[in-house]
Each structure stands twice: as C-alpha cells, then as structure tokens.
C-alpha cells in the first residue's frame, strides 16, 4: 500500500484554495442551494464504498460498504434533485408568464 502523502497534501491544499476563491463569489442569495449542491458532490464518497463492496474482502466490509452506498447514493440523488428544484424557483423580475 503506497501512500503518496505529500502529493495528497498538495492536492488538498490547492483544492481548498480553489474552493475558497470559487465559493466566496457565490451570492448569499444562493447559500442554501450551495449547501445542498456541495452535499451532493460530497456523495462522491460513494466511489470508495463501491470498491469496498465490490472487492468482497470480508463480510464486515461488505455489510458496512453496502449501507455506505445507500447513504451516499440517497444524498447524491436527493441533493441534485433539491438543488435543481430550488434554482428553478429563482427568477429575475421582468415580463413573465402568468
């Protein structure tokens, strides 16, 4: 098991900086959708769980991994759904259909 610690730390640091810069620019108007979207993106943890279950190394890892997939997938689906529903509601003023 090789663990390229330093590269990982660099990646983490750069991603954190990008995150700060990008998210600082998000209008306070959209802070709720921001939270639900980052939550959905965070469900990427599902990939770790999928490999864990697929490899079937032990009964414990299969059971825990299966629950983990369920939890992450429900976040993924629910998070994207609700973010889009919220964003659909944000409309500028001006002429609109009744």
């Amino acid at each position, binding site marked *: *098991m090789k663990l390229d*610690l330093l590269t*990982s730390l660099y*990646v*983490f640091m750069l*991603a954190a900086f*990008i995150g700060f810069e*990008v*998210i600082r620019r*998000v*209008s*306070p*108007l*959209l*802070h*709720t959708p*921001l*939270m*639900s*979207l*980052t*939550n*959905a*993106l*965070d469900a*990427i*943890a*599902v990939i*770790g*769980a999928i*490999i*864990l*279950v*697929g*490899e*079937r190394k032990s009964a414990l890892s*299969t059971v*825990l*991994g*299966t*629950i*983990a*997939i*369920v*939890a*992450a*997938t*429900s976040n*993924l*689906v*629910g*998070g*994207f*759904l*609700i973010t889009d*529903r*919220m*964003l659909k*509601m*944000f409309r500028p003023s001006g002429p609109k259909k009744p």
Partner: protein
Amino acid sequence: MTAAPGREQLIEVAYLAATALFILSLKWLGSPATARRGVRCGELGMLLAVGGTLLHHGIVDYKWIAAALALGVIIGTPLGRVQMTAVPQRTALSHAFGALCVTLVGTAEFYLRAPDVPRFMMAVLALEVILGSLTFTGSLMAAGKLQEILPQRPITYRGQNVVNLALLAVALGAAAYLVHRPGQTQLFPAVVGIPLLFGVLMIIPIGGADMPTVISLLNSYAGLAAAAMGFVLDSKLLIIAGALDGASGFILSVNMSKAMNRSFSNVLFGAFGQEQPAGASAQPERSGRSATPEEAATILAAASRVVIVPGYGMAVAQAQHKVRELYDALTKRGVEVKFGIHPVAGRMPGHMNVLLAEADIPYDKLLDMDEINGDLPQTDVALVIGANDVTNPAARNDASSPIYGMPILDVDRARTVMVIKRSMAAGFAGIANPLYYLDKTLMLFGDARSFVGAIVRELAGAQG
C-alpha cells in the same frame, strides 16, 4: 494490476474530468443565471466518476452494489422532493448520511488493514472516523431539533463543556495511541463510539437561532471527513471534493458567526439560551403602539418605498405566499418593494431567499444586509415579518446588550416601522427589542399569514 491497463487509464481520465466538472459546477453556481448549468455539470461529473468506478478491476461482485444503489435512489428521491420549508432539516439529514458513509467506509478499511496500519494512514483514518461519527450524530440531532422532534430550546447543565471536551480528549487520546500502536484494535470502537456520543452532547445545548452556524459547521466537518477518506484511499477526486465541501462549509460558518458577532467557540460552547430567564424578567413596563390591518394598508398604500424584512417567523407561519400577494398589490400601485435579508434570518444560510423565491418573488428584489442598509434611511415603511433580534437597534447602541456589536438591519432608520408579531414577548435569545417602543413603530399583532392576508384584502378593497 493484471487487468487491461487501458481500463485503468479510462477510470483515471473519468476521475480527472469529474474533478474539473465539480469545480466548474461550483463556479457556475455563483450567479442565479448560470446556477442550473452548474447542477447539470455536477451531475455529469458524478455520472462519470461513478461509471468509471464501476469499471474498477478489483470489483468481483456487482450484486450488492446494484441493490445498494437502487435503495439509495429510492430513499434519495423523496428527500429531494421535500417541501421548501423542510429544507433545513433535510440538509442536516444529508450531512448525517454523508458522514455515515465516510464513517462506515473508514471502519471497514481499518478492520481490513489492521493490525498492520502505517502510522500516517492510521492518523487520517482516525481523523476520518472521528469527524465522521461526530458529524453523523450531531447532524441527526440538528435535524431532530429542526423537525421539532426534539426540543428546540437549548438544554444546558453545569460542567457541560468540561464533560464534552473531556470526552473528545479521550477519543483523541485513544486515536493517538492507535497511531502509535496500530495493533491495539480493541481501542478502535472507542475511537468511533465516543465521537458518536460527543456529537449528541455537542448539539444538546444549541438553540434554534444558532442553527445556521451549526449546520454550516457540520457541513464543513462532513467535507473534511470525506477529504480524510480520500487520503486513506489515495483518491485525489475524493480529496478535492471533500476540500471543496469543507471550504464551503467553513466560509458559510464564518459568515454566519460574523453575522451574529460571535466566534465558533461561542456558538458551540456558549449556549445563548441560558440568558433567557434574566432577559425575560427585565421586560420593561412599556407597551408599543399597535395598529389594525386597515391602518397598516393605508400607510403602505401611501408609501413610495417599502422594505420587507422577513425572519424565521415568516417561515413558521408559512406566510411567504401571502407576502407575495402583498408584494404584487403594492407593486401594482407603483410602490417600490424590496426585501432586506439578514444572513442569519431563518434556520440555515439563504433560508429566506429560497422561501421567497418559491413564492415567486424575483431574486433581484432580495437584497442582503449590506445592500439594503444603505436604502433604509430613504425608505418610507420597513415591514418586519417574524424577525426580531436581527432588527434590534440595541445591537448598535446599547453596549450592555448581549447582542451588542451584531450587525443588524437598520429598520429603525426608515420613516415608519411596522412589525408583525404574535405578542410583545421577547425573541429567541430573550432580549427585549427597543425597536418596538419607538414613536415611529407600529405593532401589528397577529399571525403573520393572516395579518398579511388582511392587509392585502384592505388594499384590494380600497382600490376596487
């Protein structure tokens, strides 16, 4: 690594593309005009990442994966369709799910690798499960309080902070010992279990008004836990997604704390609600001027600029659609109506914006505190609906007030202030609001929804 090398590279490319798409997704979320494109982008990234992962050569069995994915979709779909008023508790619940996933994977990884876990790996694994498990129970507690299954009032007792911090110290100590001697696997349950308990105890003393900060903080923890998982699995994609989520939660928590003029530690260990009894007994013997819907309608109709300040009370009364009718009635008469939204109004960051957007109010009329405060002195009527502490002028001019220094919406600078409120009772933090006793203030006593409805009827009657 005996499988076709082409497939490995395909997976890596999929991850790389997903990473770029995630960053673009957040970038496009920056403004309402491009935000939905951001969601599409995130979905595409997720599809690529999950699709790529399913090609992974190590996967020998798809049965459980397929079942779990299907079950996740079944549970996730209704969670994506909840009422907009339930969004804060849904968000808390999704933090709990995310943290649960990370904790379970971390636990499984530990038992697969123990007792030969390299030190660094053990340290990040411990960080992953500690953050994950405290976020799991903490978020469940927060969701329970927001859903009002659990009492919303903060519950405090003597020595609470000492107990909590001691518990956390024990968990960290056990984790440190495991890093030193990874063979001591019997300690691992403590590293998972104690933070589970800590998460519960951490949220017990937290009241409803502090929820925006706490939800943001839990968001940040969930992200950091996922990033730690990325270190354990050596997955750059996971590290980046976790770092983005962690950064987002961190920025929001800093915003929220600033908007309440409090530090993180004060939110977590302060238990504002303790001041309640003292504040309530100090209630002055004055009474504000009150007005009827008819009088309120007359004043509003005569105004040329109106600013509406919504708060959690509007959400509780489900008054947003009536507010929209009021907005329409006034706009039709040529009155300029804007909304002034405090960062901590409601139960999570941006809560009021979502409710008002749901009621079809154009987003360019929703202004945040800094934008609207410049307008308030030229405003004829400031109409406060279900907001209290965020309009309290004591925060500006009474150094003895517990909320002194907190940035507020300067509604007292408008020519006339109208406050819709159930009664004269103090707000969440139990602090009297001098705004209610100003000569320019009219109190409109009643339920927000029916009172706004009555004003709308008066306005319609006067016109017809």
